[in-house]
């Protein structure tokens, strides 16, 4: 339930229209939420769910179907591979790990997109990864508390 709700909120955040100056900083909310849930419940969140989520992101962005689906599935798999290590990391190290995961996710989706349509990417393409890593500790705390709250309900 909390999982579903957090994904819904992340969808809204992705579609939210920000002022133009803020657009390049908009982090990949869905990817961040996905990383959290893979860490929190690795036995239930697999690449399958991630793939469906990514497909919805493709529809929201009016992109070619399958680009973010593949990226999300890859992200879920990689997060699963490192989840035992990441769980014991201190918060700043975790943020660095999240940064690397987001970079891989962006690189994979950007690369596939570049194959299909001409795409000009500059350094600003990677800004959301930094913003995402900075937001991570707060997001982690919020989602953890939300999960605990839901369990007590």
């Amino acid at each position: 339930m909390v999982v579903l709700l957090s994904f819904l909120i992340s969808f809204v955040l992705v579609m939210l229209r920000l002022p133009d100056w803020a657009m390049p900083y908009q982090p990949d909310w869905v990817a961040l939420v996905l990383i959290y849930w893979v860490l929190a419940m690795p036995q239930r969140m697999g690449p399958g769910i991630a793939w469906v989520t990514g497909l919805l992101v493709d529809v929201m962005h009016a992109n070619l179907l399958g680009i973010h689906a593949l990226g999300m599935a890859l992200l879920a798999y990689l997060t699963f591979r490192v989840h035992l290590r990441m769980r014991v990391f201190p918060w700043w190290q975790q943020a660095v790990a999240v940064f690397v995961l987001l970079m891989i996710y962006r690189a994979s989706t950007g690369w596939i997109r570049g194959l299909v349509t001409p795409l000009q990417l500059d350094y600003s393409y990677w800004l959301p990864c930094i913003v995402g890593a900075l937001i991570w500790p707060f997001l982690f705390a919020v989602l953890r508390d939300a999960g605990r709250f839901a369990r007590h309900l």
Partner: protein
Amino acid sequence: MATRAGRSETLFLRLLLLAGLSVTIMVADHRTDYLQSLRSILAAAIVPVQWVAAVPSRVVDSVNSWLESEEDVRARLDRLRNEHVQLKAQLQRLQAMESENASLRRLLAAAEQVPDKVLMAELVEVSLDPYTHKILVNRGFRDGIYVGQPVLDQEGVMGQVTEIMPFSSAVTLITDPSHGLPVQVRRNGLRAIALGTGQSDELKISYLTPNADIQVGDILVTSGLGGRFPRGYPVAEVKELISDASEAFLRIAADPVARLDRTNQVLLVWHGLAKQADPAQQPDPAAQTEPPEPAAAGQ
């Protein structure tokens, strides 16, 4: 430990499977339109999300219009009234010219041009992929929208519909790097292609040789070649000409005349030559009007 390694392995297999599926879907979506129904179903599922995401900008809009002072509203009303009278006068002349044009065409035994039907649509204020130039408008296939339909604003050409969903559709703007538009110089009919650059204030005009008759300030209009866009709508104004002896073609930058990043209302055009949607399907006959024709080219 063995189970964990096993789980990791099955996950890897699943990832490979999903990757294969993704590639299949991408190819199918890129080459065919079999996936249109899948996209529609998923799009219907995210309609509430879109609605919620558009709430803040709607609130900002309504607060802004609420805060507008009476003098501002009066001034705007005056301006609109003036504009309305002027446009009406122009329209009278246009109607006379249109009938004259039709009779001349009959004399020449040329095909009569079908007047285009248009439908107003509003922008849905949500953010799409920031690395492509797309906007979302609030008309979908329930309104008879088709893929490739031209989209204009009051100044000029904005782009064309590329994805249709039940209640909305995505419009690829002419500045998208994947977009090319056949244009001609209004002054002399010289034909060229206007390519998107990925910057919202610049188009690139390609394949003109250095001796081509084109100047800074020339207005480019759609040429109608390709059959997708109606002829004669303004597209861009030539901003910069660079003639480099080492290159075979001129490098030309042009300013799009449509207000691509500022308009809230767009016009969807049913173009006479394109795949004609059944006009009876259009829900609101009152919304259909004759499109504003660009001013005549002569001095």
